[in-house]
């Protein structure tokens, strides 16, 4: 699995309130990280296909980011948009909680 930002094609985020801007912070190729990446992709593709952007950042590569972003627990998913900003931690295996955290109604 790539350690670099994967789906960052949308540099200018649309104002559309239905568009999700997500950033996933992981630590290298740890089991939790790999699982989180697979899980979040699956959830997004299933519930909000084509209306999201997901950026995956390896904190090991940019250590100073941990302090800037107040990162403690990993993996961490930050939902930048739509507001309010929301933080989700864990391997995203609890789909209901992920959906709830992202504010997606099933």
């Amino acid at each position, binding site marked *: 699995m790539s350690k670099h930002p994967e789906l960052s094609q949308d540099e200018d985020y649309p104002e559309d309130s239905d568009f999700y801007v997500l950033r996933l912070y992981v630590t290298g190729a*740890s089991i939790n990280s790999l699982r989180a990446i697979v899980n979040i992709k699956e959830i997004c593709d299933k519930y909000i296909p084509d209306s999201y952007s997901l950026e995956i950042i390896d904190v090991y590569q940019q250590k100073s980011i941990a302090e800037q972003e107040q990162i*403690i627990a990993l993996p961490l998913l930050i939902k930048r948009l739509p507001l309010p900003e929301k933080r989700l*931690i864990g391997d995203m295996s609890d789909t209901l909680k992920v959906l709830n955290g992202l504010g997606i109604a099933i």
Partner: protein
Amino acid sequence: MIIEPSESKPLLPSLPKACTGIKGLDEITGGGLPQGRPTLVCGSAGCGKTVFSMEFLVHGALMYNEPGVFMAFEEKTEELTINVASLGFDLEKLQQERMIRLDHVHLERSEIEETGEYDLDGLFIRLGHAIDSIGAKRVVLDTIESLFSGLTNQAIIRAELRRLFEWLKDKKVTTIITGEKGEGTLTRHGLEEYVSDCVILLDHRVENKISTRLLRIVKYRGSVHGTNEYPFLIDEDGISVVPVTSLGLSHDVSSERISSGVSGLDSMLGGKGFFRGSSVLVSGTAGTGKTSLAGSFANQTCVSGERCIYFAFEESPKQIIRNMHSIGIDLQAHVDNHMLRLLASRPTINGLEMHLLSITKQVLDFDPSVVILDPITNLVSVGSVSEVKSVLIRLIDFLQGADITVMFTALSLNDNISEQTDESISSLVDAWLLVRDIEFNGERNRGLYVMKSRGMKHSNQVREFVISDSGLDLVDVYMGRDGILTGSAREEQQLAEKTENVIRTHAVSRKDKEIERKRTVLESKIASLREEFDSMQDELNKTYVEEELTRKVMEQNRQEILQKRGGIQ
């Protein structure tokens, strides 16, 4: 691992320690906290955990050239900077110099959704980055227990904390982890389970509305340490722990004597005064001149060029100076010369331990050779008798260890001289002076006794203690038919003796004259007898010569006759 060259002596490896720079703590711990290992500092809210850990970091940076990382889970970095500025720590500057790094961890449960398995790698990375960026040797996590309130999965947190402490050990950083005191446990979430090398408990106790801060080393693996509760102070100099304990009775003693400032008293004490480094108790009822004795001793100390601290618990410095002026002692001059420090405080301002601590602090700061506490009786108002005794024992031990002479004054409420003092410390002190009222003949006078004075010849006599404009002195009391005489009765007695003296002198001179006269008479008699004898001798001699002459003449005559007759024969 570093292997020493074989020429080095086969020393037993001892636990390396990191100095905290906190006054007194390094003595108790025998050199500081275990180097490269985590130490848990726990205590209830407001007991000084953050100040303690911040001092550890700042001293490390300033004194031991060991940069440090402070990870704050509770306070924001700006708040922290302002809070410790009151202790004189300039965190801004230290951060610019890359000696200290502050990192505030913000963790809010309501903002976080937990969606499965996670770990605290973020914390590890963050801390690792902070450590590596300044080459930190010291780390403070204040207080890591916030993780328990920020995250729900306790199993993960516990596993991760265990990993964190191992990781910190591998990093060879000396770490302080703070933790809030829990019910029946040292910390609310049982951090002591993970940090097993060194645990320090801070306490803030309020008894009788008076607060005392206490520090205790609960455990220290691989090192000996003091096990008592040590009171500590937080003031503008930060934390100071003074390990004032009853360490033992092994201090050196001096046989040097110092004057008490009252010549009469010195002569009662073998003519030379107190031993240097001894403890002296002056007890007595109200108004018997205890403070005057103490003031006089302070004055004498300063006059002989030594320093003295006078702790007053009843009067203000100005009051003492004024009152001493009335007996001809000028303490103000000594205060101006920085020979005397007069410190007045109400006993209730602090707890007993705090008093002990502040006394110790002052003594270490001023380095006096005499300390006076006037009076210790008032200390009972902030503690029980046994507590006062324990504090005084430790104070005496501390002062004697430093070769400082201490004088306590104590008010005894009953006038029974065989009674112990209220603080029952008379058995602890080396010398005990008792000033007592002697009521006789319609007036009240002061009598001074030396109840005990270890290791020196001392008078068993009661002396009258006289306070006059020119100072203090002791006068012999008179033993009369009605007991001891003091005051005007003594003066009366003195006058009577004086009169008697004059009369006696007069009588003696008359007798002398009589003798002289007798002698003259006798001598003249002897002269006349001698004359008589001479004349008698002359008389006797005269007959003898005549007889001789007669005999001679007769012989001559006979010869002549014989010659004449010879012609015939």
